[in-house]
Structures are given as structure tokens and as C-alpha cells.
């Protein structure tokens, strides 16, 4: 007997609307929404190219995920996985064979029909040798992809993978006839690509032949800014309707006290992390790491960086991950305990270490704060400022560091702690086992339980210092509604956005 999941006839667009209800900005009751409106979205993240397997960057997810390209599954703004181009799927009893049924009558923007071979082609692109997709390794256990008929795709795995549908939400399904996806598109989403003017803007036009519910606006223009002030000015002069992600609290008051704008405080997945090199002394000593956690007043830090925005989570898992739990009480702020732990660990007079600090906000401010907090318990911090590029070579590749600061943006990335070779070198066999087991779980409940357990161990071990979760602040003109608030994985679904005159 085969287990059946998500047996629903609901089209993907409906599913998104339903799932999105509680996290998108409420529709204005006044009506008067203009279904032929052009929505202008201000963003700091211009795509490098239009292909998410060729280093397109987060901008390409923001503009094209769910808007131009769709996956077999969709990750909603709440962090849930719902059916996309797959209308249904079954999993074999041994958990190694997944059979996906495709939605009917789906056409690419070029007019070609969606077939199983396009799906196979698209998944193979992500797995290919040349792929630069950050998700490539999640498909390492794919053995074969078969296409018994035009609307069926069968994926056989070498080991069980509960996250397969989730991982597939990252895979754009594109026409296998598309020649150069870095400069052109052929997806199935509610919008076609309009024009892309490098260094300036990218526009999307509503596809009249979309297979699902049509977009509620006619055109979406992503306008790109390198300067935050210029972006805010554009909003103030009505040159843009929405700013996808405000990067500094300084600009917020001018919008908060103005009825023409709405400031939305959503949940991001970006964690500010004080990552130790857990391989080297003194950070190979769990008590030292716990002491540092206890020595830092994270509430004060968050307030000084973000004012009233942002969240303390006490671990690496944000609230939009299914295995989130509030772990703020673990190794909580307690300077007296920090001093005692340091003495216990053999550092009664403290020690010195170098903190490799990326040179962009907020890391330098955070580093100064940590320096003064840790000085109170006798630890001397030397701040070494490096560029993002140097960080990548020195810290990430050469592992030549004692401790560093980094913002980790990904959703569901706790699995990094199950890899002892990851840059921070956290190595707890129990955690590695739990994380491996979570992936081979039969049910999502089982997966969630395993990852919760792992996260608690990681938190107790103070594997890293999790300082805070960035806020996701979307600022929009008051006459605009229906935009996503959390921006999970940098996605920005535009099809529900409406603007009233």
C-alpha cells in the first residue's frame, strides 16, 4: 500500500492565497483596487543574471521565484510547503520512490506545454556538474528520474529524504527548449519577463494565459538601489510603492509617523551569528562558549542595532522553521555565571581572541558591542575587519580564524551543524546522527522531533553565539496591499499585490 500526501485538487495559486492569508498584508476593505495597476518595488538586490543555478544571487529569487518560475512545490511566506506544479504525489513504503503527478494544461510562456521531460530536465540542471545552486547537494541521493508519461515524474532515491518536496520548491521548472536562462526565461508563472535594464530595473508583465489564478496587477517593476537613502527617497516621492527589505532602523521613523505609509514587521530567516572555530582552543571547550553566551546582553545589543525591531531566538532556528522553539533561557545572560564558567574552564583571568569582522553593517557595530561586553568578564577581543571576499577565503575556505561574525540567511539551515567539516567545525556525533536521522524520517512529525532534539543539544553546547534574528521590514505606501511580509528565502510573491487609486 502506498501512502498518499496532500491529496488535494486545489490549484497552487489558490493554495498560496489560503496559506498566505495570515501573513500577507490584509486587503483594504475600501476596494477600488486597480487590476491594471503597475506595482513598483524598490529593492537592494539586483539579480546578477536570471538563472538560479548560475550564481544569480538572492535578487533572482526575489524577482522570479513564484512570479516567473514555479516549482513542483511552493514554499509559502509562512514557511509551509504546498503543491505547485505537482498536483499530487505518492511515496513508496520504503520511502525511496516518489511519484509526482503534474498539474493539467500548464503551458510555458512560450506556449509549449509542460511535460514530465521538462521537469526532469529542470531537476537535472540543479544537479549538474556545472550547477552553482546552493541546493545542489540536497539532491545527492537522487538515483534516477524517470518520466513514464507526459504528466508523471518518478524520482528514485538512494536514501530516504523527507525534505524532497521542500527541496523541490527551490527547483524552477523551465522549458527544456530554453537556450540561455541567464538572459531569458521560459517558466510557467503568473508573470512573463518584461524588460531587464541592467543596473536599474527588471519588469514583469501579467501572463494572460496563466494556468492558475491570474495576478491581481498588470505589471510589476523591481527597481534596484545600491544606496539605502536613495531607496527611501524613492518611496517618499512615490517613485516606488514598496521597499522589500529595509536594512537600517534609522529610516523607519519617517514612515512610522506618516499615514501615507505602513511599516510591516515580519520574520526573517537571517541570523546574526558569532561563530567560533570550535576546533581550536579555547573555543573547543564547551564551558568557554557557554561563558561567552552568558556574558552577552543580547537584548541590549538588538535594541542598539535595530531599535524595537528584530527577535531574540536563542538558537539557530527561526520561527518560520517547523522545528522552532524559544531557547532564550539556555545559557541566558548572567555575567556572574559567565565568570564562574570561565574559571571552571581554566581561564580565571580570561583570555584574548581575534574576531574576524566583515566590514559591512551591522557586523562592525556588533563587534564593538561584543568587545565591551566581553571585557567585563576579562576576555579581550581584537577586532580584525575584513571584506566579504576575504571572509570567504580566510574563514570559510581556509578555516583560518578564531571567531567571526556572519549573517546566515537560509531557511532550514540548522543542518549545517550536522556537518563537522562546516567552517565553524562543530562536531557532536549525537547531533550529526539526529540530523541524518531526521532526513530519513517517515513523517514530518518525526523529522520535527529529531531536529528539535538536535537544536536543544546545539543550544546547550553553545555551538555558536546566536545573537539575534534580523527583522524583515517591508515598508509600503498605504494604498498598496497583498504583499508578502516574511520574505522567506528572499522570495517576494507579487501576484496578490493590489494598488488602489
Amino acid at each position, binding site marked *: 500500500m502506498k501512502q498518499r500526501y496532500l491529496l488535494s485538487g486545489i490549484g497552487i495559486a489558490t493554495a498560496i492565497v489560503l496559506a498566505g492569508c495570515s501573513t500577507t498584508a490584509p486587503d483594504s476593505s475600501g476596494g477600488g483596487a486597480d487590476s491594471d495597476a503597475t506595482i513598483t518595488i524598490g529593492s537592494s538586490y539586483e539579480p546578477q543574471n536570471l538563472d538560479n543555478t548560475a550564481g544569480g544571487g538572492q535578487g533572482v529569487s526575489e524577482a522570479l521565484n513564484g512570479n516567473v518560475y514555479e516549482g513542483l512545490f511552493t514554499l509559502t511566506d509562512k514557511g509551509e510547503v504546498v503543491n505547485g506544479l505537482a498536483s499530487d504525489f505518492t511515496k513508496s513504503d520504503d520511502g525511496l520512490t516518489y511519484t509526482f503527478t503534474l498539474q493539467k494544461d500548464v503551458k510555458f510562456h512560450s506556449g509549449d506545454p509542460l511535460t514530465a521531460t521538462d521537469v526532469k530536465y529542470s531537476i537535472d540542471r540543479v544537479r549538474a556538474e556545472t550547477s552553482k545552486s546552493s541546493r545542489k547537494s540536497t539532491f545527492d541521493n537522487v538515483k534516477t528520474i524517470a518520466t513514464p508519461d507526459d504528466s508523471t515524474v518518478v524520482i528514485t532515491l538512494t536514501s530516504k529524504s523527507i525534505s524532497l518536496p521542500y527541496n523541490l520548491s527551490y527547483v524552477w521548472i523551465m522549458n527544456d527548449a530554453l537556450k540561455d536562462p541567464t538572459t531569458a526565461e521560459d517558466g510557467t508563472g503568473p508573470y512573463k519577463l518584461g524588460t531587464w535594464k541592467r543596473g536599474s530595473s527588471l519588469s514583469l508583465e501579467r501572463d494572460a494565459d496563466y494556468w492558475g489564478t491570474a495576478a491581481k496587477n498588470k505589471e510589476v517593476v523591481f527597481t534596484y538601489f545600491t544606496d539605502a537613502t536613495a531607496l527611501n*527617497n524613492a518611496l517618499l516621492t512615490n517613485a516606488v510603492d514598496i521597499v522589500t527589505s529595509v536594512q537600517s532602523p534609522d529610516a523607519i521613523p519617517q514612515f512610522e509617523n506618516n499615514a501615507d505609509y505602513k511599516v510591516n514587521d515580519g520574520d526573517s530567516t537571517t541570523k546574526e551569528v558569532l561563530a567560533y572555530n570550535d576546533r581550536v582552543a579555547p573555543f573547543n571547550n564547551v564551558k568557554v562558549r557557554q561563558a561567552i553566551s552568558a556574558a552577552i546582553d543580547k537584548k541590549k545589543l538588538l535594541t542598539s542595532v535595530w531599535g524595537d525591531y528584530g527577535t531574540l531566538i536563542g538558537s539557530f532556528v527561526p520561527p518560520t522553521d517547523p522545528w522552532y522553539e524559544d531557547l532564550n533561557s539556555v545559557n541566558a545572560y548572567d555575567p556572574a555565571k559567565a565568570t564562574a564558567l570561565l574559571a571552571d574552564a581554566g581561564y580565571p583571568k580570561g583570555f584574548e581572541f581575534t574576531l574576524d569582522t566583515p566590514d559591512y553593517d551591522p557586523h562592525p557595530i556588533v563587534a564593538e558591542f561584543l568587545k565591551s561586553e566581553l571585557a567585563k568578564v576579562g576576555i579581550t577581543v581584537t577586532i580584525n575587519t575584513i571584506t566579504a*571576499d576575504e571572509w570567504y577565503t580566510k574563514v570559510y575556505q581556509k578555516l583560518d580564524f578564531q571567531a567571526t561574525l556572519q549573517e546566515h540567511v537560509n531557511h532550514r539551515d540548522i543542518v549545517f551543524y550536522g556537518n563537522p567539516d562546516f567552517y565553524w567545525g562543530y562536531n557532536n556525533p549525537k547531533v550529526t546522527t539526529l540530523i541524518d536521522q531526521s532526513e530519513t524520517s517517515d513523517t514530518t512529525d518525526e523529522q520535527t522531533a529529531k531536529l528539535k532534539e538536535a537544536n536543544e543539544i546545539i543550544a546547550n553546547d553553545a555551538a555558536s553565539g546566536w545573537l539575534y534574528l534580523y527583522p524583515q521590514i517591508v515598508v509600503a505606501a498605504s494604498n498598496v496591499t497583498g504583499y508578502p511580509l516574511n520574505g522567506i528565502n528572499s522570495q517576494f510573491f507579487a501576484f496578490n499585490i493590489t494598488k488602489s487609486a
Partner: protein
Amino acid sequence: MTIYILRRLVVLVVSLVLASIVIFALLRLLPGDPANALLGVGATDAQISAARAQVGSDQSIWQQFGIFLRQLVTFDFGRSFISNLPIGPEITARLVVTLPLTLLSFVLAVIIAVPLGIIAATKSSRWYGATISAASQLGIAIPVFWVGILLISWLALSAHLLPSGGFPRDDWKDPAAALRSLTLPVLTIAIVMSASLLRYVRSATLDVLGSDYLRTFRSLGGSFSGTLVRHGLRNGAVPVIAILGIELATTFLGAVVVESVFTLPGLGSMLVLGISQHDYPAVQGVLFVSTLFVLLVGFGADIAQRLVDPRLRDTVSGNRP
């Protein structure tokens, strides 16, 4: 004069080749690996080496230089490491913004600076002459981005007269919209540029006013203004033309700052982005085009000087014999 132009052209080409070598070498001195820009947290060793192969940073510096030279000769700037798009068309697309910005600013600055500079010199004893002179001192001291921010604050945010930044998506299809977008940036550059130009015009005029030929001419019965226009302008123009050439080149390169303040998709923002991403082909392309522009402007200024002042025609450098 023909021999002079030919000699000057040879100098131009040699300068261009030397500049290209410097551009190539300087970029390679930057710390870090261009492949890093393509990678994110979570990249595997295989992905890292694939990225290095794509950007060519796994090749020796001499191989990279060979490729670079071949590209220059064929006037092909290669493809961006980051976007994999050809650089040439992107530079052209951005020149559509930067060239008008530079030229309009330059023309406006000259229109402001030349009459005011002459007034500041001839009426230096009057209150307005002194005021112009003092204001120009102030103009030189003000950083260009600050002028930009002030203008945005007044004319865009408060008065809502002009856009605070950006450029139309369809470029010059609607010239009025494009000009509206360029108004504030052009004003910004022109204000700052005219201040320093004005100083040069003023001192060149003062030189002319103190000259023997002007005194002689006036003693022969010429009117003051008539003499100044007929003989003073031409003589005063020689040093000013040299300065104009330098100012025009500086404006072109200085557009980086203004383009950033006004989020204009010009060459300057392409350069800044290229440097931050280690996108060598993009940076090389922009610097090469900028260098070419600067050298051409210098060439033009030298020729113009010789047209204005026949005494210079047999010299190679801009100095009088």
C-alpha cells in the same frame, strides 16, 4: 599642424596601451579571488573550483594577460564574470546615461562660470564681483554628494518638483522624462564644477587685464569691453581650454559619486559594482572606455588650444615656447 596631430595621435595610442597594462596589473593586486563573488555559504570544493574555472582565476597571470590583450585588440571586452553577459553592450547602454550627464553638466558649468568669472575679475572692486569670488571659494569646498543630497531634499522631497533619482526604463524614448531625471544630477555637478572653473576664468581674465597688449590697445583708443572681447577672450581662453579639458575628464570619472546619490544606471555605478564583485572584465571595460574618453578630451583640448593660439602650433606640449 598635420605633423603635430599625427605625433599627438601616436602619443594617444601609446598612452592607451600603457594605461591598459596598468589597469590590468592594478586589478590583480586586489586581495581575494573573483570566484568568491559567485559563491554562497554552503559551496562545495567542486563548486569553488568550477567557479574559479569560469572566471579564469585558475589560470596564470600571463595567460590572463594574453586573453586581455587579445580582447583589447578586437575591441571586445569579454563577458562579465558575474552575469556572463557581454560587457560591450552594457557599457554602451550605460554611456547613454553617463555621456549626456557629463556633457550637459559641462555645458551648464561653462555657461555659469565664464560670464561670472569675467565679472568677478573685471568688477573685483565692486561688491558683486567680490561676492561671486567668495561664493566660488565656498563652491570649491563643498563635496559634490552633499550638494546632491541638499538638492534632493529641497526639490524632490519637499517641493516634489523633480524625481529624487533613477532613470526612465526606456532611456531616451521620452526625452522629457529622461531630462527630468537628469536635471538634479546635472545641477549638482554643474554647481560644483562651475565654482572651480570660475576661479580659473577669473585669474585668466586678471592676467589679460594686466597685460601690456591690452594697455597698448586701449591707449590706441579701443573701448575697454571691445578690447576685452576682441583680444582678451582669445588670449584668456588658452589656459582655460586646458583646464576645461581636465574638468571634463574629471566630471566623467567623478560621475561615480553623483550616479550613486541619484541611482543612475551609468558607467560609474557599473564600475563600483564591478569592483565590489571582482568582476574584472566589467572593471577593465569601464576603465578602458574612461581612459579613452580622457585621452580623447586631452587630445581635443590640445588641438583647440593650437587653433586659438597659433604660437603653440609647433610645440608638442601645451606650453608656450
